[in-house]
């Protein structure tokens, strides 16, 4: 499809209402070719709704949306032919075998068997399910099902791969296998759009992201730039015990650029974490545990919304 300027997705004032509820509230963003673009935010931020509008299935209430230069209201089926979709909840056909899932799905794009057979084998190998090719989907673990869903989404050689919460509910090892595969796709030049409420996932996979909350975009940029802009270089985390955090917070005034008091811990945003921690201890304050770490997107989100990503 002709797309000379490399803009794959363009949203202007994109809005979606469900009855009285405004799920997505006038968001603007662009996704460029070959980019891994993230939508980061807590549950209910409007990420999945935005994703379903990009997937050209959910109709927008207002604003402009263009995917590969086409309006999804007019060209839904055509656009969907260029997309690969990994939905939040698996929707594999559990009654047929692993390989058949790919072939059957490929048929929906009008692809012939002679193409789908070798393609299915290649994708099964890519997602490391070769030994399970003839197994029933029922017998796969959660991580394997996710990988199969990703393979299925690649059967039509999509220009854009949409991943809605790709690793939610997976154990750490399964997440790392999945991230590795997604990273390889990125290297191969596939444009990725990923929604997540895991800041580590966003940091690992996304070149650029928008932070969403309550249907609105709070900030946009590369992970590094967002951290630079909205947080300090380092964070000192102190735990004094849940009933004492608030009491002792007053005595920490003057440390760092900013202090956040959470129910379970105090965060001090600073560029000199170790030094500050040493001075706090000198002052006679004895936290139960203390930790100096680099700022993360979690801190960006906390700064922007006053809330944690995972509640």
């Amino acid at each position, binding site marked *: 499809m002709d797309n000379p300027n490399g803009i794959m997705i363009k949203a202007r004032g994109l809005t979606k209402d469900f009855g009285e509820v405004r799920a997505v509230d006038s968001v603007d963003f662009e996704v460029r070719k070959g980019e891994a673009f993230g939508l980061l935010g807590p549950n209910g931020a409007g990420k999945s709704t935005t994703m379903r509008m990009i997937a050209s299935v959910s109709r927008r209430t207002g604003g402009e949306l263009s995917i590969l230069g086409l309006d999804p209201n007019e060209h839904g089926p055509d656009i969907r032919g260029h997309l690969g979709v990994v939905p939040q909840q698996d929707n594999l*056909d559990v009654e047929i075998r692993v390989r058949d899932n790919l072939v*059957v799905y490929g*048929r929906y794009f009008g692809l012939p068997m002679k193409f789908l057979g070798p393609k299915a084998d290649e994708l099964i190998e890519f997602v490391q399910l070769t030994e399970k090719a003839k197994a029933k989907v029922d017998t796969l673990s959660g991580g394997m099902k996710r990988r199969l869903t990703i393979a299925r989404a690649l059967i*039509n*050689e999509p220009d854009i791969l949409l991943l809605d919460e790709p690793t939610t509910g997976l154990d750490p090892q399964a997440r790392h296998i999945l991230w590795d595969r997604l990273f390889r796709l990125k290297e191969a030049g596939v444009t990725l759009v990923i929604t997540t409420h895991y800041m580590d996932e966003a940091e690992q996979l996304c070149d650029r992201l928008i932070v969403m909350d309550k249907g609105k975009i709070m900030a946009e940029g590369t992970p590094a730039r967002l951290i630079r802009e909205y947080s300090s270089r380092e964070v000192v985390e102190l735990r004094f015990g849940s009933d004492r955090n608030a009491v002792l917070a007053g005595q920490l005034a003057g440390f760092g650029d900013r202090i956040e008091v959470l129910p379970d811990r105090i965060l001090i945003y600073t560029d000199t974490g170790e030094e500050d921690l040493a001075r706090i201890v000198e002052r006679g304050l004895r936290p139960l545990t203390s930790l100096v770490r680099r700022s993360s997107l979690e801190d960006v989100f906390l700064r922007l919304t006053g809330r944690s990503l995972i509640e």
Partner: protein
Amino acid sequence: MSDAISVHAGASAYFGRRRSARSMAYGTWYVTEHRLRTMRAYLGSIIAGSVFNPVLYLFALGVGIGSYIDSNAGAPGIGGVGYLVFVGPALLVSAALTVAFEECSYPVMGGFKWTREFWAMNATPIDARQVVNGVLLAAGFRIVFTVAVFWCCLAAFGASPSGYGFLAMPAAVLSGLAFGSVIMAVAANLEEDDGWFPIINRLIITPMFLFSGTFFPLEGLPIWLRWLGWISPLWHGTQLGRAAAYGMSEPVWLTLVHVAYIAGMLGVGLGLSWRSFRRRLSK
């Protein structure tokens, strides 16, 4: 293990100018193809059900009850034919309706709620209308199979004396599709499994089975109950089947009403299903 992935290895060669072109043309068939492939998983029970069911009914109702009724009713039997000949078309149509209900109730609700496969289909160029048509067409294949087996049993039992008896088959298949399309529209609107299907079964399907002129002519009911038959696809399909199987005499306008009613029901059922699927999938 291969870590390489070819992103553009040649799919575009098969797509033509627009990636939706083939799906637009053949999408319904792709959905049907998928569902038939899934049916293979329970092919054994489909075949067994299609064969044993008619044999069972024909023995019990036709041969058992039938010989009793015939010996008591005297020579002409019901409508001038033996009981087995009378009840055969009704059993044929009701077998079609049963399969339609099986394929269009839980599997349709589950496609939204449990397997979520309709969303998977709709993520491709396939649209809501093609999903509906494909699911109904796949149900149609099963109905055709069941009806064909049933009719062969009827013929073997001598219950289809007319040379046009085979025309009872399309009447049964169309009745099944019409009923299935309406059940599908209902199923597509059930967001929770609140036990609606057992209720439909008890309050609609069982009375329909009993009071649609199935086991005795509709005229045997008091006039104020006959509407049960008039609104029932089973009655309309059965009357068509009887006209085919033994040339039951009926005014031509009434035969046309039967055809129109079944076609109309199919049209309404499809229209409602399209609307429900589209509404649900495009949320």
